[in-house]
């Protein structure tokens, strides 16, 4: 099973160890972009085991990672010009933090990796450096009792490893805090957007088809005006919940994700709702008001629901918190969404 990123082998007392570079190839980068869009994401893995970065000797540090290739690539590309052993643990192709949460990145797996690689024959030190975010799954003291190797927690981000290693394996406070800045949020957007796209398209199509039933302009003409507008609002709702909310997260008011999403939905809908209201001629004002209000309710409840789904991708939500929010928010979202559909349909049929 040849892995294209392996560029040779390093001879060690325990046999040859595949060697990798800190330079990512164009194929590595393309693969990284593809999985961010959900393409082949569940089979983007690295063969577990020991790898040599550069030309490590018996004194080189041992850095542990998950066998998700995005994790592995982040690790090696953070260490240009350095030599280290990279111990890739079998986390079933899942990233460090999620695997730790699921329990697949565990003391047992790390210990198994250390023994199977015969690490004690390769390096002199009896220490391995784990990513801090493996700590929800790895009981460090159990690694030591099982293997004799002390397991210490390095920084959260691979990019901090050079500074951490140079400081004698000391992490600063900042290295130990999980950030969630704009760039970190934006890379998550495609995986919020893409899986929901089919639902949004289905709802948009439903509104399109229903829209022609009302009005006095004939089915096709009503569909092309009111129907297209409704479909457009549905797609705007999708963007509000899956794109605008993650991007504006720190600035949207409230702590509950549904509230943030509802506000994003309202913000995005407001100018279009206003325009629809103003653009319409006189006559049938009540029907139009119902139609616009119904779409507004759909936008607000839909974006709130989609925003709630972002909780799992964030770095600062708890299970207890999400459960509490859902108990209140999900029934409200369903009620408001259904009311929105009903109101919109009533407005259409009355016009």
């Amino acid at each position, binding site marked *: 099973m040849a892995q294209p990123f392996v560029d040779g082998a390093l001879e060690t007392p325990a046999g040859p160890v595949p060697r990798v570079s800190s330079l990512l190839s164009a194929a590595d980068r393309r693969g990284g972009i593809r999985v961010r869009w959900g393409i082949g994401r569940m089979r983007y893995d690295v063969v577990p085991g020991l790898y040599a970065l550069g030309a490590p000797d018996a004194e080189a540090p041992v850095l542990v990672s998950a066998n998700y290739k995005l994790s592995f690539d982040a690790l090696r590309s953070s260490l240009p010009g350095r030599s280290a052993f990279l111990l890739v643990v079998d986390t079933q192709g899942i990233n460090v933090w999620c695997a730790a949460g699921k329990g697949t990145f565990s003391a047992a797996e790390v210990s198994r990796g250390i023994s199977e690689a015969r690490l004690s024959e390769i390096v002199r030190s009896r220490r391995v450096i784990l990513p801090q975010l493996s700590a929800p799954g790895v009981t460090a003291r159990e690694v030591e009792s099982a293997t004799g190797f002390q397991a210490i927690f390095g920084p959260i981000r691979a990019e901090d490893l050079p500074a951490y290693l140079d400081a004698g394996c000391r992490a600063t406070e900042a290295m130990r*805090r999980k950030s969630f800045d704009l760039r970190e949020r934006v890379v998550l957007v495609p995986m919020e957007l893409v899986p929901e796209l089919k639902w949004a398209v289905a709802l948009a199509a439903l509104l399109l088809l229903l829209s022609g039933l009302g009005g006095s302009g004939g089915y096709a003409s009503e569909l092309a005006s009111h129907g297209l507008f409704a479909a457009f609002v549905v797609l705007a709702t999708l963007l509000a919940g899956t794109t605008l909310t993650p991007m504006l997260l720190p600035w949207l008011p409230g702590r509950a994700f549904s509230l943030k999403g509802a506000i994003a939905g309202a913000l995005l809908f407001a100018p279009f709702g206003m325009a629809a209201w103003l653009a319409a001629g006189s006559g049938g004002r009540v029907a139009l008001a119902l139609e616009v209000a119904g779409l507004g309710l759909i936008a607000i409840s839909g974006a709130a629901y989609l925003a709630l789904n972002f909780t799992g991708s964030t770095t600062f939500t708890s299970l207890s918190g999400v459960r509490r929010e859902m108990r209140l928010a999900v029934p409200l979202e369903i009620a408001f969404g259904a009311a929105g559909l009903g109101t919109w349909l009533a407005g259409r049929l009355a016009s």
Partner: protein
Amino acid sequence: MTERTTRKLVYLADVVTLRFEPEKCTGCRMCATVCPRGVWAFADKKAVIYDRDACIECGACARNCADGAISVRAGVGCATAIINSYFSKDKGACCC
């Protein structure tokens, strides 16, 4: 390194299941080492819960506390996983 020092994002107040028994703590600081959220601080060589609402119940501190001084009902704060668990799909697996 950008935006590292922006204000901490916090979720709902007063909801997490984190429990600490200071009399068991020997001050090894492991909890503060593994916590990605700055929940723990130290006073008189013992840990104290410094920012409880920042806790995400990841369970890293409880798992790595050799003194057994910490408990938390650990899990992942993921609405998708909770919804999947309603339909018992993948036993509540998240998207990752």
